[in-house]
C-alpha cells in the first residue's frame, strides 16, 4: 500500500490552519487507499530519537507533505530544522537515498498567497539539492480563516474541487496541478479591504485576551 506522511509545521498544539489543511488532505488520501500518518514537527524536533525514527519512516514513504504557516517570509524554524536534519542524514549516509515526493501546503496571514512563494521555493530547493522529487504546493492567504474548522465549511469551501484534484494527483504518483495551485492562490477577500477587516479582527482578539494596553505600544523605542 502506498504511504504518505503529513507533517504539521505549526507550533500550536491544538487547532491550526496547518493541522486542518494537513488532516483534510490526509483524509482524501486515505479514501484513495493511501496509508497516512499525520505528525506535528514541533515535539519531534526536540527529541533526537523521535526525529531519527521519523526520518527513518519518511524515507520509505511515497509522499511527504509539509503543512506550515509562513513565518518571517519563509519556513518556521522547527520546519527548517527538520529539513536540515533530513539533508544532513542524506549527506552523511545515515539515511538511504530515497525518493519520496515532497509536497507543500502553506498559508499566511495576508490575503495574498504570493507572500508564501519564498517559503515554497525554499522547500523546492531543498528537494532539488537532496534528490527528493518535487510534488508541488498549495498556498493561500488568510490562513486563520480555516484554523480549527473544516476546510469544506471554511471560506475555502468553493475550492474543494481543486483540493480534490490535488489529492487525486498526489495519490496517483503525480504533482499538485497548476490549476489547483492557482485556484487556492486567489485572495478570499479583495486586498484593499483587508486592512479594515484585519484591524477589526486584531482588536477583537485583543479584547478576548483581556488586553487593556493599546496595540500600538512601543516598548523598544530608542
Amino acid at each position: 500500500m502506498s504511504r504518505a506522511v503529513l507533517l504539521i509545521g505549526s507550533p500550536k498544539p491544538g487547532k491550526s490552519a496547518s493541522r486542518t489543511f494537513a488532516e483534510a488532505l490526509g483524509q482524501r488520501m486515505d479514501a484513495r487507499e493511501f496509508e497516512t500518518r499525520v505528525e506535528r514537527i514541533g515535539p519531534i524536533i526536540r527529541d533526537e530519537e523521535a526525529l531519527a525514527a521519523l526520518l527513518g519512516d519518511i524515507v520509505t514513504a511515497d509522499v511527504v507533505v509539509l503543512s506550515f504557516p509562513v513565518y518571517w517570509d519563509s519556513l518556521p524554524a522547527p520546519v527548517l530544522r527538520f529539513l536540515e536534519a533530513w539533508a544532513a542524514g542524506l549527506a552523511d549516509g545515515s539515511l538511504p537515498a530515497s525518493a519520496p515526493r515532497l509536497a507543500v501546503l502553506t498559508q499566511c496571514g495576508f490575503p495574498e498567497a504570493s507572500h508564501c512563494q519564498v517559503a515554497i521555493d525554499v522547500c523546492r530547493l531543498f528537494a532539488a539539492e537532496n534528490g527528493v522529487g518535487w510534488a508541488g504546493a498549495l498556498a493561500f492567504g488568510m490562513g486563520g480563516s480555516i484554523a480549527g474548522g473544516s476546510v469544506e465549511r471554511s471560506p475555502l469551501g468553493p475550492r474543494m474541487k481543486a483540493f480534490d484534484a490535488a489529492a487525486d494527483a498526489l495519490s496517483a504518483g503525480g504533482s499538485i496541478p497548476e490549476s489547483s495551485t492557482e485556484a487556492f492562490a486567489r485572495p478570499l477577500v479583495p486586498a484593499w479591504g483587508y486592512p479594515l477587516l484585519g484591524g477589526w479582527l486584531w482588536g477583537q482578539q485583543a479584547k478576548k485576551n483581556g488586553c487593556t494596553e493599546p496595540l500600538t505600544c512601543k516598548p523598544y523605542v530608542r
Partner: protein
Amino acid sequence: MKALILDATPAGDERTMRAADALVAELTAREVSVERMLVRDLDVRACTGCFGCWTRTPGECVIDDDARRVSQAIMDSDVCAVVTPLSFGCYGALAKQLLDRQICLVLPYFVMVEGEVHHKPRYGSYPTWLALGTLERPSASEADLFTRLVERNAVNMHNPAHAAQVIAGDESAAAAVARLLDTAGVRTEVLA
C-alpha cells in the same frame, strides 16, 4: 552609527565565524561601533504562534527570554546584520528561531505597500537590514533565493535600506563584506 551583529554561527562552523569576524573588522574600519551577539549562546525558544506579542503584551513577546533583549538591541541599532550559514536559500534554523520571535517589532494592523498588504510599522524608524550568508560551495539558486527573502523581510520590517551577500567556499570574506556594506550605503560618517 551603531551596528548590531546577530552572529548565528553554529558551533564548529569556521566559514561563518570568519564571515562574522570580517564584518566586525570592516564595520570597525568604517568607524561604526559594533555589538556582536552570538546567537547559539542566547536562550531563545521557538515562536509558539500565539500572537501574544500583538494582542496580549503589545510590542513584546510573551516569552521572557533573550529574544526580548535582542528586540531592544535591534531597535537601538542603526544597522542590524544577521550572519548565518544558508539552508536551501534561507537563514539557518538557528538564526530563523530568533527572527521568528521578532514580529513584535511591527503592528498587527495592515497597510498597502505597492499594491500588496503588509503590516504597519510600530516604530518611527528601523535599522538598515544586512544579511550575510555562507555556503560550502557556490550556488546561484541559493544566493538568488536568499536575496529575494531578505528583500521581502526588508519590506515587511520597513527597513530603510537592506542588502544580502553570500560567501561561498574559500571566497574572500573581506571582499564580500565590503560589497555588502557598500550596497546598503553603510559608510564612514563624515563629521562636520
